[in-house]
């Protein structure tokens, strides 16, 4: 396997303070990498950096072996899709929401129609097609938000705690469905969570961020059995 994303010597500052430092990080094609750590340690900052939505103080991000900085932001971002903690659906129908990213890319009408139907069905919300998006329940809205991202068939899917606002039964069902879809499509995914159970369920690799630095990267079972340092061990035991 080859790395889809490679981060080298990255540093992000916020209000003069270091918000994130990453010496080295690779995400292989087809990997689902869970980024775990307590709140405020830089997990979401890493995701924003990967999406080029935040200014880097220094460092490089290689996408498929090429320097990401060489391309325009829009060209770079059109290889990925981002799902945030809140669904942030637009004030339009469910169909139009899922079609939005495809329209940004100038995809043809028929293709949009096919992909929107396909991904809403895959996320089990096909029946909501014509509903106003802002009238959906939290679980339905997050499914539509995931369909909106997956319909783009991105090379890289970035998920920022997409289940944290959901009630436990809805979260479990969505986690199972998303797990199957990611497995089926082989979409490379970076998934931020502070919930270790979610990481175990969805990811084949895990990166632990503490104090704005990546402390350890590896399969979840390996990190649990051999934490890199005391801080990681304490975090995993919490």
């Amino acid at each position: 396997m080859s790395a889809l994303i490679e981060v080298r010597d990255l540093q992000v500052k916020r209000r003069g303070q270091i918000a994130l430092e990453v010496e080295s990080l690779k995400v292989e094609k087809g990997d689902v990498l869970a980024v775990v750590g307590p709140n405020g340690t830089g997990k979401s900052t890493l995701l924003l950096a990967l999406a080029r939505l935040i200014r880097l103080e220094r460092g490089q991000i290689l996408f498929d072996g090429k320097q990401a900085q060489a391309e325009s932001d829009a060209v770079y971002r059109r290889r990925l899709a981002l799902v945030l903690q809140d669904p942030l659906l637009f004030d339009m129908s469910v169909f139009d929401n899922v079609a939005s990213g495809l329209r940004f890319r100038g995809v043809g009408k028929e293709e949009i129609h096919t992909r929107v139907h396909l991904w809403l069905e895959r996320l089990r919300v096909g029946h909501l097609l014509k509903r106003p998006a802002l009238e959906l329940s939290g679980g339905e809205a997050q499914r539509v938000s995931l369909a909106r991202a997956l319909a783009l068939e991105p090379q890289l899917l970035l998920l920022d705690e997409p289940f944290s606002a959901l009630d436990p039964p809805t979260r479990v069902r969505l986690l199972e469905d998303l797990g199957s879809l990611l497995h089926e499509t082989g979409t490379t995914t970076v998934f931020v969570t502070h919930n270790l159970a979610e990481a175990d369920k969805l990811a084949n690799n895990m990166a632990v961020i503490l104090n704005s630095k990546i402390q350890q990267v590896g399969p979840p079972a390996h990190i649990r059995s051999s934490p890199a340092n005391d801080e990681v061990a304490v975090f995993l035991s919490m």
Partner: protein
Amino acid sequence: MSEIFEVTLLSLQVSGIATVISLLIGLPFGSWIALGKFPGRSFLLSIVNTGMALPPVVVGLMVAMMLWRSGPLGALRLIYTPWAIVIAQTIIATPVVIGLTSAALQSLDPRLQLQLYGLGATRIQMVLMLWREARLPLLAALMAGFGSVISEVGASMMVGGNIRGQTRVLTTAIVLETNKGQFDNAVSLAVLLLLITFLINWALTWIQQKGARK
């Protein structure tokens, strides 16, 4: 009757053109202030907000001085023409549109920008989507902009001169009829002005509320 029609038509044309120009300037400029991060942004917003309360007579004075035969733009020979009123009304409406556009976009969830970029939107696509999301308050900006110019009299009088058949609009005609003591005519024109303003705002409100119910 034909004179009333002429005056009404000119009022609508002048204020309509001024509103459209103020939207063309105000929407992008207001968006830039709302979404941009640059030094002096708050100061600029304070100036715009002050501009929202700009007295029409002050605007009339400034425009008259600029367009006066001996003024810097006197060669254009625009003073006492409908275009002079359009210029003055544009200056009155533009800060209103900028200020309300800026407020409308700032009231949206700031993460919407990240979400739109995260779906591959270019900057222009992102701004267009935010306008769509803020369409109800933006329609209110349009109504406020139009309302501020269709009802003003000071600037129109000063730069238009209230010339019969050329620059007389509803508000200046009302002033003239009142000065002559022709209160019946003044009241009729005032009712007509109110009716037109109501009909236009009613149509815009209908569009706005239809959008709100969707």
